[in-house]
């Protein structure tokens, strides 16, 4: 893929990537945007290269997921060592309208998803939100399709239980 094609593909997939980054960061908007920035720059600067072994979206989601994990480890390390610096320009806090919107419709689902184990949350997000097949989700997560299926079924049951408790929208 040429640089232009990569940039175009990234732009096309940007809304889906943003949703995936949010899920990887448990809906911490600031962290999700940082992760997305770092992941995009890795790709645009050639530090992460698409090998063509899977679809571009599958590969991109894998890069975002790994970047989120690195970011989480970095944050943890900085908090342990006592380096309380926050790098970059933090994204502005959500507006009252945004908060109201969040509270109205999807708050229950988001809360229920946050409580799930990471693998279950990721599989459910990829299948229901990104409309991927279980095989594609397994490739993004680097697990076997059978394992993805197990996480999917357990996640659905757990989500249904929690979602029911939180109240359906």
């Amino acid at each position: 893929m040429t640089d232009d094609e990569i940039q175009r593909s990234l732009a096309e997939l940007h809304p889906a990537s943003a949703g995936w980054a949010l899920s990887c960061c448990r809906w911490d908007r600031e962290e999700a945007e940082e992760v997305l920035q770092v992941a995009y720059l890795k790709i645009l600067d050639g530090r992460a290269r698409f090998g063509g072994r899977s679809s571009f979206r599958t590969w991109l989601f894998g890069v975002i997921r790994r970047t989120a994990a690195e970011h989480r480890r970095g944050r943890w390390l900085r908090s342990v060592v006592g380096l309380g610096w926050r790098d970059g320009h933090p994204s502005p806090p959500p507006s009252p309208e945004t908060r109201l919107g969040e509270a109205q419709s999807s708050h229950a689902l988001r809360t229920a998803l946050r409580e799930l184990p990471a693998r279950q949350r990721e599989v459910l997000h990829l299948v229901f939100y990104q409309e991927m097949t279980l095989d594609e989700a397994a490739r993004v997560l680097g697990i076997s399709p059978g394992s993805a299926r197990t996480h999917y079924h357990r996640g659905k049951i757990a989500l249904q239980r929690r979602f029911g408790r939180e109240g359906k929208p």
Partner: protein
Amino acid sequence: MTPEDDRDLATAFADLRREEEGQTPPFDEVVRRGRTRRPVRAGLLGVRPLALAAAFALAALGVWLGVRAREPRHPAVPPLAEWRSPTDFLLATPGRDLLAAPAAWDRSVLDLREVPLTSQPERRFPS
């Protein structure tokens, strides 16, 4: 889980997606912010003193452990061949020379009397 449950979940996720897509900053804006933000790894000068101190302590610990590993664990031990028992003198009995050099087949036992009993046991006492 029934198909209706799956449909409910799919609807809820679709609502969530619509909501989040409305709040997503544009792609160019995300890239621009990424390019202008300070890198996480700011180099040695950007690191706070506590981190420097921790790194220095770790390095010192590493050097100390390395030096310690190279040192012999026990003081120099003499080779086994040089070892002598502290009660070895008890074996130095009178007439030891006679025992060390027995009479040859073609000599009489009486000739042995000619051998002077020179080797007297050294008087030593265990400390």
